[in-house]
């Protein structure tokens, strides 16, 4: 079962995300604070990170950067959710690997589809690697 960390200040959104993710078979940990999110990430790196751009403590984009800098998981699949006014965030995030930016209000369907994309790409990569080994 894949593990996902959700960092989001807005409670109802966090609840909706958790609901949707659990029903889709993911294990979910949620937090409303950036620093707490970082602690969770260092404690146990999840399979994906879903974070709001604006968080108290460390911002969503900053979390991304830190993961790629300090943790072995350079390419942790991440979804950053931004409000409409956050153009700057979008631009910053565009240059980071394996980060997708979604506008709020977020379509849960789109988000789940995006996670699917991340993971199916992973599994494809795995199979390819596997085949190499066999050869």
């Amino acid at each position, binding site marked *: 079962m894949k593990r996902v960390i959700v960092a989001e200040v807005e409670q109802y959104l966090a609840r*909706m995300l958790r*609901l*949707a993710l659990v*029903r889709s078979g993911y294990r979910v940990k949620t937090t409303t604070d950036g620093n707490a999110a970082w602690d969770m990430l260092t404690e146990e790196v999840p399979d994906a990170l879903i974070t709001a751009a604006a968080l108290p403590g460390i911002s969503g984009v900053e979390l991304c950067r830190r993961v790629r800098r300090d943790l072995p998981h350079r390419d942790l699949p991440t979804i950053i959710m931004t409000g409409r006014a956050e153009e700057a965030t979008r631009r910053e995030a565009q240059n980071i690997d394996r980060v997708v930016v979604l506008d709020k*209000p*977020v*379509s*849960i*369907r*789109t988000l789940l*589809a995006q996670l*699917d*994309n991340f993971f*199916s790409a992973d599994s494809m990569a795995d199979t390819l690697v596997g085949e190499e080994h066999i050869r």
Partner: protein
Amino acid sequence: MEFRDLDLDRYAPLMRRLMPDAIGFAVCDSVGLRRWSSSCSDLSKCARAITVLNENREGWPETATTMVCRAVGEAGFAHTLRVNGTDPAAGVLLVLMPADATDDSKIGDSMSIVADCLSSESEFLNELDSMAAELSERYEELNLIYITEDNVKYFDEGQDALRKLVQNTGRFLDTGLVALVMTDRNVTTSQGNNAVPMADAERILEVATTDLYERVVFMKEAVILNDPATDTGSPRLPKLKCKLIADPMFDENGAVIGMLMIANDPDSPDFRASDAKLLRVMSRKAARIIQVNYDSLTGMMTRHGFEYHLETALYVVRYKRIGHCVLHINLDRVHVVNDSCSHHAGDELIRRVAAQIREHLGDGDIVARLGGDQFGVLMADCSRERGQEIAERIRESVNKAGFTWDKRRFDVSVSIGVAGMAPESESIVGVVGAAEVACNVAKDNGRNRVEVYERDSKMLMRRREAAEWIGHLHNALREDRFLLYSQTIEPLQDQNGTPHTEILLRLRNEHGQILDPSEFLPAAERYNLMPAIDRWVVRNTLKMLAANLPRRVRAANVWAINLSGQSIGDGAFLEFVKREVAQADVLPENICFEITETAAVADLEKARRFVQALKEHGFKFALDDFGTGLSSFAYLKTLPVDYLKIDGAFVKEIADDPVSESMVAAITQIGHVMGLETIAEFVENDEVRQCLVTLGVTFGQGFGIERPRPMIELMCDLTPQLMVSGL
């Protein structure tokens, strides 16, 4: 029952408390797989019991009772678990007791209690799951509605908004394909989130923009097809392999301006009424956006959008140094169709011409309905020459196609103005203005033509001046600067025949120059001043005659006065003329009105009645410029005229060109048969005059006979001894 949702470890203490002697507990699902077992020391015994249980599957009771099986060394008790009373068993609760366990009923009771708890919790969790699903759906729908901007004022917002609407509908709803179809069959589409793109999307779109669209327009309500195969309304819809809903978009008058459609794979769940309701909300939003930016009759963008594109184009022209071309297209005489048939016919005409215009344009070209019977076209990266070419093609195909309505056929034409947008162009107002001016020139020059705006063209100068003419003409009328001239119409066959005289109009401008009618009449016609001018001519001719000639001289001549088409339509003209004639003491029989075919063409029936009414009072009529119109003979048959004026174009050449001669001969013959007198214009010399005499033409008029001169001179000639009052 979904075992993964139940935390069975929590039930272990309950089970142990109720059945302290038990060795172990396990739960199997409906296919007999072990889903959970309590941590018991003897797992293998559980396994054995389960195997035995599975071997006796047929013996599983339908209702929740305890079964007992005795395996080697243990007694296994099994209790079926079900979520709802009537559902088949979701699984089995297994309790392993020591081999010598005897109190079956007590064990059974305990197991019942646990089973009930498990069932309740499972039921509850199922409920919760359904509600969660519903909530998710509502959340998505609500977000879709919030996010869809429909309150757009500016064109670029509108384009954007429509695109986003379609994309978001696909994103937020569970659809494979979303399509927004407009009246001109222009489609915006989006694929949904489904990882696999919808098979057959092209085919579906093709049918959607034709058969389905027509159905929606006809029914004026949503069409839901969860099983197209059962549809009986059309041949192609049942072949579609998808589920779909299509909702019409309405404008404020209730006319359908487009359609919003969502489609899904045939394997997806049926579309429900709530989906249709949501689609209705979305299509209303789309309609609102479209109305601001698109014309509902033709599906083209409005002036609003056109100007937006022009601004962008001008910017591109300046910074990329390429040229664009702008056309202003005006449908000629739509009112004829509107008046003869109905405004529905007029609407249909506009729609068809819109389609014809589009046919000649490329994908990158922009066309808009600017209002009424006017269209604007912007062709990017296009030279003026090429623009002119395309304009000419449009003009030709519109003219060729014509328009048929209710078995009546109408001639249709457009006047087109072409203007180039160059880096020097100051603003879009200038370019649009230039195209409009060129279009007006086209109209002035006879309609059904293309004119190109040339900055310093004489034509344009004249056009601009023409606009100033209204002022001039009003002043001239007020200041009596119009002048009457006359030209003799000589009887050719009978030297003693009644002399005829045509009254001609001149204008003295502020500089004292005498102007020909060709210099001011077109403007007068364009600005509806002809009735006033015609009346001025009638009144003053009669006044001149009354003031200068004795009655018997007045009565011994026929005075020919030109009448414009606009006067023919004037209902009060008859009364006016009667009054004037009475006041001047001139007999109607001495007045002949000259009318041209083109004047009568707008409404032949009206013209006939007009002529008839005046004739009943004794006035005479001449049909002017005969032979140059398209349906000369038809007019001749309908209008009860007395004279036929043969157009000068035929007469000029009769001495040298046998064809012209035979034409004049033919017309004269017809006149003869119909009892009409013929007048030949443009008699420039004696040779021509002689030919005409030979051919039997009754009268001749032209420079070879007499040049036009101030009417006062004629007055003098006719009564040299009397004092004359000048005009």
